[in-house]
């Protein structure tokens, strides 16, 4: 990966259009946490025509359920959860709220990839399981909604240089396909060279 690109929030379509699958990025600004149970509630609010607990236009949702912070700490371990469980909800959030970016890990559905193209968004992966490493980029953590959901509550995080990689970009590129292909091409070229 080449030089890391810097992303600040709010994160606009103009910013998103500059990103390509495989880009390493550092995110600074406000991001919102949300995963399975919180997404379900957000969609129920949209169904009921009610306002959401936070403005999502040009925002980034981080699929994370952190461990509880110890006394004196800002947050506990805070790595990404697997994203496909939010596939049922993500296209509607992008279409109806203007949500621009998602951070998680793992495969997304074709519908999510299409929504990212249609709405000029981006899907980023952080390193799954790197809970301690990613926690160190969080400068503040504030409850926004659904404290009863515990680790699944929606929280507002202020992050500095949160590291992630672009997986799906608004041109339809997919790092999980292109990265693997590039590596396998490299292996084949090496084997060819050895013959």
């Amino acid at each position: 990966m080449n030089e890391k690109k810097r992303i600040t929030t709010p994160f606009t379509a103009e910013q998103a259009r500059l990103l390509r699958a495989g880009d390493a990025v550092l995110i600074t600004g406000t991001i919102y946490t949300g995963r399975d149970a919180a997404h379900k509630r957000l969609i129920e609010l949209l169904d009921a025509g009610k306002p959401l607990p936070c403005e999502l236009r040009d925002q980034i949702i981080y699929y994370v359920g952190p461990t509880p912070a110890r006394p004196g700490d800002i947050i506990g371990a805070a790595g990404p959860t697997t994203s496909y469980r939010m596939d049922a909800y993500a296209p509607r959030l992008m279409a109806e709220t203007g949500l621009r970016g998602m951070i998680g890990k793992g495969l997304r559905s074709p519908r999510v990839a299409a929504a990212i193209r249609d709405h000029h968004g981006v899907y980023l992966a952080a390193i799954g399981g790197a809970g301690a490493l990613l926690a160190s980029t969080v400068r503040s953590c504030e409850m926004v909604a659904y404290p009863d959901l515990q680790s699944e509550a929606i929280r507002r995080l202020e992050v500095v240089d949160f590291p992630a990689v672009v997986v799906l970009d608004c041109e339809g590129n997919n790092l999980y396909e292109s990265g693997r292909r590039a590596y396998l091409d490299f292996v084949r070229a090496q084997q060819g060279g050895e013959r």
Partner: protein
Amino acid sequence: MRTISAAEISDAVRALCIESNRILPDDMRRGLAAARKNEPWPTAAGVLDDIIENYRRAERLEMPVCQDTGMACVFVELGQEVHIDGSLEDAIQEGVRRGYLDGYLRKSVVSDPIERINTLDNTPAVITYDVVTGDRLTITVAPKGAGSENMGRLAMLKPSDGLAGVKKFVLDAVEAAGPNPCPPIVVGVGIGGNFDRVALLAKRALLRPIDRRNPNPAYAALEKELLDSINALGIGPQGFGGRTTALGVNIEVFATHIAQLPCAVNIGCHVTRHQTAVL
């Protein structure tokens, strides 16, 4: 008869829950170091560096390595000459409850799969009991996160599918999982038994160190062959491409029926954790 108190058991389980979530076992550290050394793809090498830095930092900061501190899977080997003063089941659940509360671990358990209300203390643990000879009580706590657990598969293959069918089933499971289970992964494989036993074999396979091969040479060779096949897929660390898709393949087998060839794959992530205490 040797007597062990319920309180002693709870204390041990509490400590195991906290330690297992903060400290990556030595075999995984060795596996990650070796994988980093052998990884020819720069992106993948960078991801492995971050993964290694993460477990080191977690230990230093006394923080969980991963935010998914899992369901507590507890494996009990109860010596038949041990008398437990109190309820063994209650003592273990109490230890898990205290470990997850006192250790600031995530409470990820819901009481009912449909209603989904959090139990707030990560109980109940999934406990597996074995009665063995002797007067010892051996307890292993293996927290298992959902990202990898959800990628597990089980098939009742036909005897005619044979070894080739088993290989295909394992490779297909890893291929389908792709980046989801947080590669580099550990692949636990169960072969034989019946529907329920084969799943337990696959899970137990993840408790064996990744650098210790199955004592049966044929299965040891199959572990190596499958590991090579998996690492030729190119999925790589986190699925970004690279050599290191798996750190190890562990196979456990059991006798089976003339009409059966059960096969199960239980995938562990790069934070495949477990700690054991002997009382």
